[in-house]
């Protein structure tokens, strides 16, 4: 090679390298920062369970909820990031001064996935089906206001009026979970009393029509649901392009979480519908560093696990051990547990220490100035001594006044590594103040059965919360609620502080003044932190893993974590998840 050509070759190589570098840097990175989303393409997501119905009114488990959000649409939607109610099938609304009458204007020109127009008659039909006793909808109770149904009336084809039976603080946000159903497809089934079976999982997919971004194309039981773009979908992006961007969305049914992770790692899935476990982050971080997956932290969970004791008055467990129901025991436990150790050891740092079930992700409802008492073993021992629990044998373990050991059993979920490991840490840490804890790991059905029968000492578990507004979760906060963990379904409040909480929550849930609602709920939280009927230790940070090709994802801490805005998801051009 002539020497004089070397500078030319070197220049060409340098320019090529520079172009390559710039191209790599400008290439679409996480969340698609570089260019407009590409239309078309396929995305594969995994889900752990499969639906038992294609109708959310009939079955309201997580699989049905996800499918409903993908194939159906509500009148209004709660934005999972801002918590605000957004116009959806209703383009606008007005409300009366008393908050009882809501008038909705429906979008014009909206059609179902089979091309039939969407009108006010479909809204009226949906409410008729929801409250029909023959349907027995699992959604009906969450769409009643103080146990009374919402009335509905069509004014014209594009105007409906909803009548609330009483003032309701969260307002129309509860409509987020109600998909509008096609009257022309389901009215005969409702009239004949066959509504519950009309959209069963054996119904041909072409019969399932909706107003969502996708339409069901194929269901292979135990394998996958195939969704294809709804050509009649009504939404457009800011540039006027038709949504959804994706042509096809596959929901692979993968019941086992390790297998789900392996699929993501191998590129055979683009995202999982559940969050990443802390122990899996170590596996995924190198892949994220290599640009093969994206790891996005959505925030702190709104459903931290918590410990509660059976506070049912006269419960068998408390007859011989009345100290189990003493507030001093709960305060001592809260003081004795090293929350940072749980965060660092169990959650490997991927959590925040918490002192309440209301976490920072509850937004306006979170009280940052709540007291966070530091760990204090001496004070914990003093509190236990005040209820007669002392070390009578000098062996470091406490006994009650009758010389019976200070011992209780703690039920937790078998197979749930975070709960099992936390329970083991609680056992170890409470031993330091002389309490003996017998951890019993069982399946969720057994926990719920023991909870319902009230045959337990203490439970370490969680209940899913799909809304951050406390008035949507009255089952937990009010003494009559089935999820008032420590003493559920009370005819009248068993204690003065629960009566106070009931009164505050009643006012909080009926007030229409946001500031007053926040003030009342702050009072509720202060009562809760004083009485500690539930004790929380750590709330995990919700991290979502997606393949590098996914664009437009805005993960939320509320389910479904990513697919709540599936119509604006897109994929980078190129090889996708391989299909068999």
């Amino acid at each position, binding site marked *: 090679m002539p020497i004089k050509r070397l500078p030319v070759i070197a220049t060409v190589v340098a320019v090529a390298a520079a172009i390559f570098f710039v191209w790599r840097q400008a290439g679409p990175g996480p969340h698609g920062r570089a260019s407009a989303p590409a239309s078309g393409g396929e995305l594969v997501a995994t889900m752990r369970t499969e639906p038992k119905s294609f109708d959310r009114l009939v*079955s309201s488990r997580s699989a049905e909820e996800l499918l409903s959000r993908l194939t159906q649409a509500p009148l209004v939607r709660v934005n999972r990031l801002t918590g605000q109610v957004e116009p959806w099938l209703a383009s606008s609304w007005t409300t009366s001064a008393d908050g009882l009458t809501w008038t909705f204007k429906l979008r014009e020109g909206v059609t179902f996935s089979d091309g039939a127009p969407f009108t006010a008659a479909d809204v009226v039909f949906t409410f008729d089906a929801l409250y029909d006793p023959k349907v027995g909808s699992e959604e009906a109770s969450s769409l009643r206001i103080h146990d009374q149904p919402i009335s509905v009336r069509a004014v014209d084809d594009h105007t409906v009026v909803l009548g609330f039976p009483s003032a309701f603080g969260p307002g129309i946000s509860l409509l987020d979970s109600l998909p509008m159903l096609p009257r022309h497809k389901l009215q005969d089934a409702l009239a004949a009393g066959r509504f519950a079976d009309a959209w069963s*999982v054996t119904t041909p997919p072409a019969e399932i029509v909706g107003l969502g971004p996708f339409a069901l194309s194929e269901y*292979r039981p135990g394998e996958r649901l195939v969704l294809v773009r709804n050509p009649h979908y009504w939404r457009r992006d800011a540039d006027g392009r038709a949504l959804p961007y994706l042509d096809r969305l596959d929901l*692979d049914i993968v019941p086992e979480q390790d297998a789900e992770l392996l699929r993501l790692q191998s590129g*055979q899935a683009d995202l999982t519908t559940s969050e990443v476990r802390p122990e899996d982050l170590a596996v995924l971080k190198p892949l994220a560093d290599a640009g093969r997956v994206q790891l996005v932290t959505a925030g702190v969970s709104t459903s931290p696990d918590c410990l509660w004791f059976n506070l049912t008055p006269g419960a068998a467990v408390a007859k011989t051990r009345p100290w189990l129901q003493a507030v001093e025991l709960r305060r001592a436990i809260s003081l004795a547990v090293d929350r940072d150790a749980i965060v660092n050891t169990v959650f490997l740092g991927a959590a925040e220490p918490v002192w309440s079930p209301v976490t920072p992700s509850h937004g306006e409802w979170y009280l940052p100035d709540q007291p966070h008492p530091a760990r204090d073993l001496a004070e914990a021992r003093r509190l236990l001594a005040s209820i007669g629990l002392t070390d009578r044998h000098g062996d470091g373990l406490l006994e009650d006044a009758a010389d019976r050991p200070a011992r209780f059993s703690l039920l937790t979920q078998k197979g749930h590594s975070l709960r099992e490991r936390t329970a083991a840490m609680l056992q170890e840490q409470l031993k330091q103040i002389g309490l003996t804890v017998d951890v019993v790991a*069982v399946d969720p*059905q057994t926990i719920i059965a023991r*909870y319902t029968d009230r045959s337990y000492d203490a439970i370490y578990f969680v209940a899913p919360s799909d809304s951050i507004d406390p008035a949507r979760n009255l089952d937990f906060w009010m003494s009559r609620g089935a999820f008032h963990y420590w003493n559920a379904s009370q005819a009248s409040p068993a204690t003065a502080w629960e009566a106070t909480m009931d009164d505050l929550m009643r006012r909080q849930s009926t007030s229409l003044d946001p500031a007053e609602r926040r003030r009342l709920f702050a009072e509720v939280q202060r009562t809760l932190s004083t009485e500690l009927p539930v004790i929380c230790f750590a709330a995990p940070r919700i991290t979502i893993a997606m393949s590098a090709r996914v664009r437009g994802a805005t993960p939320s801490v509320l389910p479904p974590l990513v697919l709540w805005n599936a119509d604006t998801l897109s994929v980078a051009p190129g090889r996708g998840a391989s299909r*068999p």
Partner: protein
Amino acid sequence: MTSGGLATFVVRRLAAAMALVAVVSVGALLLVRLAPGDATTDLVLAHVDEATIARTRARLGLDRPFLVELGDWLAGVAHLDLGESSAFGRPVADLVGERVLKTAELASLALVLAVALGLPLGVLTGSRPGGLFASCVAPISIGILSCPPIVGAFGLMLLALGTGWLSIAPGDPVVPALALALPLAATIERVQSQATAEVLAAPGAGAAAARGLPPWRLLWVHAARQAVRPLLGVAGVIVGTLFSGSLAVEWVTSWPGLGRLLYDGIVGRDPFLVAGCALSGAVLIAAANLAGDLARGLADPRVRVS
């Protein structure tokens, strides 16, 4: 075996099989009933109100006494109606029918793979029990045998992840079939190896060799054919292994077969689904046992009905 004796044998074995099926399915129904919680327990977690849960319990017949439930279920079974699954909202007979086919597909593939691997390996290792080849294969077989199929399934999935050679998408049979086939191939290899060694050590083999039979024909035709008989005797065990192994393998690899359906039924406290799966599993195992015994009788004239 006389035809009359055979008929008596078959009738007796069928009666025993029916008793097995009855005990297994009624036992499954009872166990689900005794387990804490029921099919509506997860509705509590979904915040469904108590009245709806009570209506659901009544609709699913969970509020009946166990004996009434059992009587109704048995009456239904007589008409091939296995009840309705609470977890899937569909007739159990339809679900089981679909999933039995998927498990049969997986099991057939696993069986073919296991026989294709295990049989020739067993003949080869049995022909020279102390040889280098046998010394290498035997520990591998024993290692695989002592490894539960669920561990094998995870191992294969990791292999698929590391190499990209195998697909792990739901519905792809390669990984689950291999996970089921490998322990089975090891079983077949061990049984066939021992039987081949015994046949070759018997005087008949020496006589055949003395008559000038080529060694390959002696090994692959005479010895292998005689040695396969013990395998037929464990046919029922093999099908049982496939069925029990499929429970874990189908769960891990997302294969929509009978094992995963049974698991879903147990987790969901779905009494009729669990009973239906147990019933069909018991029928399969009983049928395989009977078929294995009959095949052994036909293949080995020394076997007599006693």
